[in-house]
């Protein structure tokens, strides 16, 4: 059968037409590719506009086109648009090919003649390929209405609540003993100076008691299998050594436990907890966990003080880790961030000079429920500082560490300045490179802190040292910096230094990304589907990223993203079924020799060997369509839908212009 092909060349305003002679490309296609079946070739200002799409639809109907080639932007942008247009006109959507002459030609080349010639080759490749395209049907699979949310910080809590309130079930998994995340560590939030616990605790309780939320704290996801709509997730519920059904959360076990442990997680190393503990008073759930590594009983075989005093016999030293299997349709990752390790900037002295604090340490210091009851004091636990230096951009905007801006540090530094002022009356210096206070009421907060008398020095701090040169520096920390506004070097002696440390991806983000089948950027943050238009989805259908797992952000943005991802998930659930790309591999049993070369190549275990028939078989539900087995089959028995040998070979010939009519013929 001869095909009737329509070729549509897009101007994209001047994006393509400015560099490529689009009229010439269209004219050329109609003339030189006519023997291939091109019956019409048009150029149009914006093919993706509704008028442009109508043009194609009209031609399909009136001219009876059987194949369509659109020479425009990247298929990642508008392949779907044109496939839908074809479908509207009654043509199978997979009989449409996009030839990228914007991202691959007009935007990257400058010579008009060369760019036009290359565009012709790209169009020629697409025409050759589209002839070999086969009509495909999307595969529809039902969506499991349950959702998994990984990470119980504010972003995860918000996601879980939105979905649960809409009436669907959510599994909320958190690796720490309580949900709350970093927000639970703060005293005040900028710029409103709301008490963090006052706004967070009700949300935590709501998530903890919601009938549609199964809360799994002290638990970690260990395996993920399946695909959108049908994920099968294995969760390790770590042994708590406390029977949740019997425990009333009275706290006697914590009181009686003789083992004190430095709390590196919740108290940022400033305070202590017991071996059996809840991280903080408002923890949700309020059952303690036993820290096996530090428990005296597990170490030496005796003690059991907690068990002796527990009024409800809830302590159970025989508990084992449990593996839970759950089935969910969608997954939201809200795994958060790690604080940049300030020890790495050795010239700022953190870890060596006792009165240099990190931002999280200061959060605990200023927290009324923290180790000092909210008194801002030096490392000795009693001296109130008379002068404090706050250094911005520690580990951020620095090629030696992280190139990116950590977004929250400026506002956090201003908040610290305000708190120090309010509670100690000390002189406060903010050492900044640029002041970035870009959201609603943020710059007003900066003005307020300025008016309170905080001193601002612009310039990157070179060093924090205790080596005094002058008498007024003795016993103090000296901040050595360039003041770029005054144009001179300064040495400013202070009692306390706070490092406004940057945010970093979780230390295990790479492994987590791998487990869920999503990628990380070069900086290590999870990669979103589109940086502007799809910031919460990922390249893997059914997996979403919210909050700081996606990149540094403040509380309002994290909450907004949590809600946004939930809307996307609810949309999926309400559709009841999801259409999967029909790009799959299939085995032709007649040709299969049973060599089993393909069996070991598939990472998704989609290929099984049927011993009785001596052939291999591919499970289309598990096949992800990578095509590695297609390329490997020595008998040519496996074909890959959408990327068949015929299609690719035709495209090669087309790109090399072998498909042109021989001269003189």
């Amino acid at each position, binding site marked *: 059968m001869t095909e009737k092909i329509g070729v549509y060349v897009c101007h994209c305003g001047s994006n393509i037409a400015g560099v490529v002679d689009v009229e010439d490309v269209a004219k050329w296609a109609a003339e030189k590719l006519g023997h291939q079946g091109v019956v019409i070739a048009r150029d149009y200002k914006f093919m993706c506009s509704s008028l442009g799409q109508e043009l194609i639809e009209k031609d399909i109907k009136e001219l009876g086109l059987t194949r369509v080639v659109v020479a425009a932007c*990247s*298929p*990642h942008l508008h392949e779907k648009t044109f496939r839908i247009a074809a479908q509207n006109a009654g043509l199978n959507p997979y009989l449409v090919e996009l030839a*990228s002459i*914007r*991202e*691959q*030609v007009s*935007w*990257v*080349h*400058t*010579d008009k*003649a*060369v*760019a036009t010639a*290359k565009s012709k*080759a*790209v169009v020629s*490749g697409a025409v050759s390929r589209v002839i070999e395209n086969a009509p495909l049907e999307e595969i529809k699979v039902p969506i499991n209405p349950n959702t998994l949310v990984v990470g119980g910080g504010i972003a995860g809590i918000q996601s879980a609540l939105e979905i649960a309130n809409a009436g669907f079930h959510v599994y909320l998994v958190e690796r720490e003993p309580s949900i709350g995340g970093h927000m639970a560590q703060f005293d005040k939030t900028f710029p409103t100076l709301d008490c963090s616990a006052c706004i967070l605790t009700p949300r935590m309780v709501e998530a903890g008691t919601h009938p549609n939320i199964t809360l799994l704290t002290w638990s970690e996801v260990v395996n993920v299998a399946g695909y959108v709509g049908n994920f099968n997730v294995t969760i390790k519920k770590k042994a708590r050594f406390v029977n949740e059904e019997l425990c009333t959360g009275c706290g006697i076990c914590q009181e009686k436990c003789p083992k004190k442990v430095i709390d590196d997680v919740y108290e940022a190393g400033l305070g202590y907890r017991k071996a059996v503990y809840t991280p903080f008073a408002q923890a949700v759930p309020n059952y303690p966990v036993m820290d096996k590594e530090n428990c005296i009983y597990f170490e030496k075989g005796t003690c059991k003080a907690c068990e002796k005093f527990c009024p409800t016999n809830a302590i159970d030293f025989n508990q084992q880790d449990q593996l839970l299997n759950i089935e969910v349709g969608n997954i939201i990752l809200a795994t958060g961030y790690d604080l940049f390790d300030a020890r790495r900037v050795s010239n700022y002295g953190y870890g060596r000079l006792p009165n240099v604090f990190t931002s999280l340490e200061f959060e605990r210091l200023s927290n009324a429920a923290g180790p000092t009851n909210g008194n801002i004091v030096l490392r000795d636990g009693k001296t109130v500082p008379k002068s404090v230096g706050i250094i911005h951009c520690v580990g951020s905007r620095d090629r030696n560490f992280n190139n990116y801006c950590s977004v929250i540090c400026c506002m956090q530094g201003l908040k610290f300045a305000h708190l120090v002022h309010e509670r100690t009356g000390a002189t406060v210096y903010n050492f900044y490179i640029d002041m970035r206070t870009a959201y609603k009421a943020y710059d007003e907060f900066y003005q307020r802190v300025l008016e309170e008398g905080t001193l601002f020095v612009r310039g990157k701090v070179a060093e924090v040292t205790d080596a005094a040169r002058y008498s007024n520096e003795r016993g103090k920390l000296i901040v050595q910096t360039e003041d770029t506004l005054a144009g001179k070097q300064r040495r400013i002696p202070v009692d306390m230094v706070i490092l406004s440390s940057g945010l970093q991806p979780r230390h295990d983000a790479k492994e987590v990304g*791998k487990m869920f*089948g999503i*990628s*990380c*950027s*070069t900086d290590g943050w999870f*990669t979103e589907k589109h940086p502007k238009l799809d910031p919460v989805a990922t*390249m893997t259908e059914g997996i979403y990223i919210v909050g700081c797992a996606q990149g540094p952000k403040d509380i309002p943005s994290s909450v907004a993203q949590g809600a946004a991802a939930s809307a996307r998930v609810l949309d999926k659930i309400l559709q009841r079924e999801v259409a999967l790309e029909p*790009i799959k591999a299939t085995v032709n049993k007649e040709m299969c020799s049973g060599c089993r070369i393909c069996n070991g*190549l598939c*990472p*998704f275990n989609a290929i099984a060997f049927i011993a009785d028939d001596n052939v291999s078989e591919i499970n289309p539900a598990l096949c*992800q*369509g*990578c*095509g*590695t087995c*297609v*390329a*490997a089959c020595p008998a040519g028995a496996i074909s*890959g839908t*959408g*990327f068949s*040998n015929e299609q*690719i*070979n035709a*495209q*090669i*010939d087309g*790109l*090399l*212009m*072998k498909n042109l009519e021989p001269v003189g013929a």
Partner: protein
Amino acid sequence: MTDQFEPTIIGFTCNWCSYRAADLAGTARMKYAPNVRLIRLMCSGRLDPTFVLRALSGGADGVMITGCHPGECHYIEQNYKALRRFLLLRRVLTGLGIEPERVKLVWASAAEGAKFAAETTTFVEEIRKLGPLCWGKDEDGRMKDDEDIGNSSIKTHPSSFEKEVPA
């Protein structure tokens, strides 16, 4: 237009990383040599070595294969399989009398538009130094008919016989 040799290069890019790197190079308006024409595959693991041979025999002077960085494959590990095939293919090419340098493997993540652009330009320069691949072309660089190819001796760069490909 100058008289210098402009090689024709076919590029195979995977859908998830390197095709997106090419898109990013476009979005960021990075300029690179216009000699490469791309074919999108779902994964570099889909690359059948015969595609490369077909491209070379059909008039391409070089082939660039790009995929996700090791450990970052959308299909977990299929780019490792592409790497293995690439190394074997280079040996086969040596045996056929074609400089193995005409086929290049590049890892480019979706964030590495700059790398994609730079590697493309470098590769074009490398192929330019090697000169046209005369397999299937007559003295003037025009394509021969298939029958002619069968009868003629294949012209190759003499250095290709001397170089051993590391496995």
